[in-house]
């Protein structure tokens, strides 16, 4: 059971939007690392990334990290020269922070993709724009259907001696057959919609989610943390300079409170998911004590 999936979509949207925005806005080594940490922890608990994607992410990180000193030759501390370009500590650090930011944004976007798909996305859209949400829902139905039809058409031709023309030409033949199929389907679907009052004015929207007391608490906590981060930033915390020389991570005012609040915010979904996992296992264990060997 995934705790995040039981949550109302609105606080989820609030959190992810804020997480991505903060990640993009704060060019700060500690905050960037905290954001990445939060993203990694959350995803590994919620929907682990496939292993084959990790080399790609690392490559991306190193490209950004090493690319920055090559294109931005600023900074005071020269480490070495590469093809007569001075590679500086400051520029390298800025590149690394950029890389971390990029990774964390990518991970958070991935988390949004998993946590806010299908019905939750429709819900978020549907409140404002019921018609757009309906079109999206229809499209979501259409894509798998068309994929299936395409396969059907292709294998029908293959089973019957093929089309006798090249691959590309065949594909275009299949595609045109698919289009007429889709048109025919949409005529039926249109009739079916009209039969069920599809063009009546005053459409409402079905929301399968109830905004519970718990969701109110979650939203409240999130708002409090966001407010805290904004206030601390307004007070001058969270500022960081890379050039000409790196500033210390404790130089700005109120650094520690910001790190705590920011870290708390970014790690919140991971902690919550972890807590959900623990309470779930414990509840199962209590309910069925004799079956502990099957629990793992």
């Amino acid at each position: 059971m995934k705790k995040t999936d039981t949550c109302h979509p609105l606080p989820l949207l609030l959190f992810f939007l804020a997480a991505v925005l903060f990640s993009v806005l704060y060019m700060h080594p500690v905050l960037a690392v905290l954001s990445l940490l939060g993203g990694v922890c959350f995803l590994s608990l919620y929907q682990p990334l496939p292993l084959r994607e990790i080399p790609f992410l690392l490559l991306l990180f190193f490209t950004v990290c090493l690319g920055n000193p090559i294109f931005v030759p600023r900074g005071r501390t020269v480490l070495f020269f590469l093809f007569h370009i001075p590679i500086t500590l400051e520029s390298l650090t800025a590149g690394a922070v950029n890389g971390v930011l990029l990774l964390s944004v990518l991970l958070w976007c991935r988390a949004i993709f998993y946590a806010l798909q299908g019905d939750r996305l429709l819900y978020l859209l549907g409140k404002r724009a019921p018609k757009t949400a309906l079109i999206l829902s229809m499209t979501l139905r259409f894509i798998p259907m068309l994929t299936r039809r395409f396969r059907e058409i292709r294998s029908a031709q293959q089973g019957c001696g093929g089309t006798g023309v090249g691959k590309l030409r065949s594909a275009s033949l299949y595609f045109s057959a698919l289009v007429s199929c889709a048109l025919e389907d949409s005529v039926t679907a249109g009739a079916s919609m009209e039969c069920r009052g599809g063009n009546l004015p005053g459409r409402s929207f079905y929301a399968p989610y109830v905004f519970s007391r718990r969701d109110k608490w979650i939203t409240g906590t999130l708002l409090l943390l966001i407010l805290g981060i904004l206030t601390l930033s307004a007070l001058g915390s969270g500022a960081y300079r890379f050039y000409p020389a790196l500033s210390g991570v404790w130089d700005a005012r109120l650094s520690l409170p910001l790190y705590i609040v920011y870290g708390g915010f970014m790690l919140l979904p991971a902690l919550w998911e972890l807590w959900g996992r623990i309470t779930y296992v414990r509840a199962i264990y209590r309910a069925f004590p004799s079956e502990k060997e099957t629990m793992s």
Partner: protein
Amino acid sequence: MITPCFAIENLSFTYPKSDTPALENLSLVVEEGAFLLLCGKTGSGKTTLLHMLKKEMTPHGIMQGKRLYKGDDIDGLDPRTSASKIGYIMQDPDSQLVCDSVARELAYGLENLGVSPDRIRRTVAETASLLGLSDIFHARTAQLSGGQKQLVALGAVLAMGAQVLLLDEPCSMLDPLAAADFLSVLERLNRETGVTIILTDHRLERTLPLCNQVLLLDAGRLRFLGSPVQSPYALAEAGLEAALPAAARIYLKTGGTDPCPLSVGEGRQYLSRCVHLKENSVETAPAPREEVVLSVRDAWFRYQKKSPDVVRGLHFSLYSGEIFALLGANGSGKTTALSMLAGLLPPYSGKIKRLVDTALLPQNSKSLFLQDTVGEDLHRAAAHLGKGREAVEEAAALLGIAHLMKQNPRDLSGGQRQKCALCRLLLTDAPLFLLDEPAKGLDASARQELSWILRRLARQGKTILFVTHDVEFAAETAHRCGLFFDGTITAQADTFSFFTESTAYTTAVRRISRGITAPAVTIEQLTAYLEVDCEG
């Protein structure tokens, strides 16, 4: 006096560009709570009549006469009332669903009516519980089976508060088991909630025993309106005898008098009580066993590395000139096995020896046609296979489809399309035809014709293997039958012994006549044992 659900007075309707009316001077009263079955041959006006009862479906054309829903003119009905109270369910389970998930689909109509979210949540939950949709409530509609899709379509109109259900051949795309499930849900709704049901179906054997009123249309005119037990003679006169339940066909053959048996149980009673039997013997055509055209040795198949095996040790041979029917339940892997035999899917273990070329007819024969007209498609295929126009003309003449050449393949009736698809297979010159559910969705006469065509092709030297759910079709058509179960053929025998030895998986005629007459599988075999002139 209670106002009837529908009252139709002297209704006539003519489509634009048509000289003959589709409906002519029709008068009809449908009481509330009725379960009315509309019968008639293809083109008799059943669907037009059904469309007349729903404002949104009414086609363009010239209409005369009156049509009332609960005393109000259907044309003047408030759009909200019309949308919510009169539910319409179509034939194609795929294209009538609109949304991506079951929950959304059930809520769709209520959203249109502007019902508040709380109320929608409750109504959707009630409907899902009523129809047993809770297990698939969160499922994507694209992943459902045909039967589930029809149930969802039913739920979607019931959730809106439908008091009348109009269904246009709702079961024609479903396998027999799913069709029986769907119809039993309809019957339960009619009995328990008093919903009025009006439906058309081309396989009367499953709907006639359920309904409580039958309406027969012939060329747009009302020919019969009455109870199902009185209907068989009128239906047979209108050319629908082949569509009747086996018990009713036995009753007709023996010239029985009221009341007509409809179910297998009633048929057994009728046969043992009212019919005189005579000694006779049945001749069955032996399966030709000349040379092997295809042999499968212990073939195993799965779709993905870690998915379960779909075909598990398939082992059998096909002989030239025979018709082999592969029977089995939905999802048992029959279609997969067929694709393997056609060489589209390779087994991961075992061997498939294809000694001749094969041509495969897919389940949805629409996907065989890529062009806008049948003729264009067939000529193109012929050109690619190195043949001239005469090959197409010859094949078309053989199947009697020469007049369909200018038609769009999508506009054809099921039977016509199946014949055009067979024509496409004939062009390949492949000696072995593999057909996936060739009789699916066909009405009784088209089914008989297809059976006849397949037998003739076999006589001309083609070998045919087809996959089907339809035991009656298999019994009429095939030389040999096999039962596909658990990924392999568990039983195979010549058709007659296959169906006489099987206890449950057999034809209605066999179930009715078991233990009463000598073994008989088809109605023709059974009539050989009956004294045809006996009365009552």
